[in-house]
């Protein structure tokens, strides 16, 4: 019955030239709404916070997690493309980490589908990201008296790789949206109208649903390639290293980001990327997996045009026929999904790190 009605509406809409195929029904999709509260272990999260901002977690001690996941940018990258490890660039935009603890799949291509523990390991060890031999990292932590104290206080015993992979996810739990007008019920009239469009005419809800405003599934929306990935050898080498390691066929000649294809190696998944959350967009521009869209009005325009050009593009995308006011309302709604900036000392480690590793006194006598 529901299906039949939808189809009927779609046909009607098509006849009228409105262009929206499926008028999404809120009931068909997990409803958008506030995020659940997460229980946080304060000592573990405090440790994770110090680790997150510590450059010594990368191979040459040149970059920290926070160098690509910038607090002021809702813990996403500043530029279209993430800077990557010194000596190379990157080929994607670092996703916002706000609410990352609420997700069940990570990376634009969805290559981590387990937990943030694995994701932490992936980011720290991957050569074009932090290039860290975690055995060296562990010994660095053990050489820092404050870490020794903090690991102990967190109940982890002595510093270890495994505990780093637990403490950082614990910290990431603290990066949960707070104070968004959408959550507080203080949306403007325009934003409220935008929400209606979001759930209805604009069809955004088809993929952007649930409290995170993402179905966490891969879709091809036809986002144009960022040519800087391939024209800048620094970025291209990171892409190539990634594609080689992932076993993507003919990776050296590839001129596009394969996205979810990386996981299945099936053509039907070419150019699909995991739907991002729409929370905190106010801070996290530019948008899309490769930062190709600079502003929210541009994003809305992109979808109003039915997405980009790709033979594998999702059938869900069709021109929307939104009026100028409707587009404004939709942007207002998207903005209402952003909360307070998570940039205070509660979230950001603002103490200096020691410039040198202090010596362990009486070294020959104490146990390593």
């Amino acid at each position, binding site marked *: 019955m529901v299906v039949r009605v939808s189809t009927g509406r779609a046909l009607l809409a098509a006849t009228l030239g409105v262009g929206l195929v499926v008028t999404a029904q809120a009931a068909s999709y997990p409803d958008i709404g506030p995020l659940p509260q997460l229980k946080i272990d304060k000592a573990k999260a405090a440790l994770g916070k110090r680790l997150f901002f510590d450059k010594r977690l990368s*191979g040459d*001690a040149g970059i920290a997690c926070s160098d690509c996941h910038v607090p002021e940018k809702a813990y996403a990258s500043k530029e279209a493309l993430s800077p990557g490890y*010194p*000596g190379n660039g990157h080929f994607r935009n670092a996703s916002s980490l706000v609410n990352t603890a609420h997700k069940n799949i990570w990376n634009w291509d969805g290559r981590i589908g387990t937990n943030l523990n694995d994701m932490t390991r992936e980011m720290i060890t991957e050569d074009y990201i932090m*290039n860290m031999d975690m055995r*060296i990292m562990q*010994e660095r932590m*053990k050489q820092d008296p404050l870490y020794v104290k903090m690991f102990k206080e967190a109940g982890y015993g002595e510093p270890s790789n495994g505990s780093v992979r637990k403490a950082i996810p614990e910290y990431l739990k603290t990066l949960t949206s707070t104070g968004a007008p959408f959550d507080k019920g203080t949306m403007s009239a325009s934003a409220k109208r935008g929400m209606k469009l979001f759930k209805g005419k604009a069809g955004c809800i088809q993929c952007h649903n649930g409290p995170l405003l993402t179905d966490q599934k891969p879709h091809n929306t036809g986002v144009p390639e960022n040519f800087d990935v391939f024209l800048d050898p620094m970025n291209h080498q990171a892409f190539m290293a*990634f594609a080689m390691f992932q076993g993507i066929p003919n990776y050296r000649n590839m001129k*596009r980001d394969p996205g979810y294809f990386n996981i299945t190696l099936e053509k039907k998944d070419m150019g699909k990327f995991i739907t991002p959350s729409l929370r905190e967009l106010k801070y996290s521009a530019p948008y899309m997996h490769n930062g190709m869209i600079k502003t929210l009005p541009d994003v809305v325009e992109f979808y109003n045009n039915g997405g980009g050009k790709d033979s594998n593009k999702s059938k869900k995308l069709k021109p929307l026929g939104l009026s100028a006011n409707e587009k404004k309302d939709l942007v207002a709604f998207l903005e209402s999904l952003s909360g307070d900036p998570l940039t205070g000392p509660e979230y950001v480690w603002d103490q200096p790190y020691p410039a040198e590793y202090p010596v362990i006194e009486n070294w020959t006598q104490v146990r390593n």
Partner: protein
Amino acid sequence: MSIKKIAPTLVAAAVATVVLTACQAQETKSGSAASGKAMAARTAQSGPPPLAPLGPPPIPPDNKQTPAKIELGKILFFDPRIGGDASTGCSTCHEPDQGWAWAEDFSRGYPGTVHWRNSQTIINSAYYGRLFWAGSVPSLEKQAPSAAKGGVAGNGENDIMESRLALIPGYRKRFKEVFGTEWPLIGDAWRAIAAFERTLVQRDTPLDKYLLGDKSALSEEQVRGMALFNGKAGCIQCHNGELASDQDYHNIGVPPNKRWEEDGLAQVTFRFELYAKGMTEEGYRTTKADPGFYFRGKNKWDKGKFRTPSLRYTAYTAPYMHNGVFYTMEEVVDFYNRGGFDEEGRTTAYPENKSKLIKPLGLTDEEKEDLVAFLEAFSGEEILMEKPPMPDYAPLFTKAELEAAQEAK
């Protein structure tokens, strides 16, 4: 007196040269690398093989030398992009003007780290059957990746390093020319680097000249030193043959580097090495000195053993020993003269494994001077080399090609 002692050595040299030649021929056939132990066994009856002029380096049949390969290897050797963050290539720790090594006790290591052993010279590395202080790899082709990837050395990974090569047109051209591949393969990079390293040999030292018949090549002092080397000082027991190394593993009593007690960064690396090389939990907790050759077979009697280094080119490679604790040859000679103790009386942390060959020598000051003078004869002219120009990165595709691909999506 000294002449009498030298005479039998020269006879032995002639005999040993034959033995060595036969030995090498057989090994070439079987395809295995030279084994110091095998050589030692063959010559056990006649004592250690005498010092001999250095012949041409062995060339593995599966990695022949060609000028184009050597030139490619040279460029790669100096290219810091063959490493993790594109700052640390082979030459970073093996600087031509630092004896093709690093003039500090520990090698400088990857940024953010320090190494835990002394960087060895590349000069004459072609002759070793196994590389690294504990002999952990069997060839230069295996040494290069091990160094380029090690966390406190190059910290590179195959995928990023190979990708960099693909984005450097100069390398694409050269690799295709040398190896016939459409794209550079990282494994071929190691082969080219090894081929280049096999050109870094020195065979015209005063000692070589002397042994080849030019009696004026050594001073009288050096000739006296040689007699001590072969006799009273006993150096020849391990520093023998062409390379002045038996390529075997010995604990000679080198004390741990004090830097491990005084330098936090060095302590980080020390524990990392124990962790990475696979100690037991208790071993990791309690070890305070480099166990060396122990890591190869995990036999406790091998703790503190390191492969005898060649004495060739040592005029340029200070500091000395696996952990660089001695900065001059005078210190080294004093160390042996005391029977393997430094001036503070420190010795190996594994005295139970200390070689029986190491005993107080009772050398006089004059004898020590003679010995040091003779050690200088193992080095010829300094081998310097200018860094070749590095080929640049260039985009693989044009914008037009990318636009066409976008259109075709």
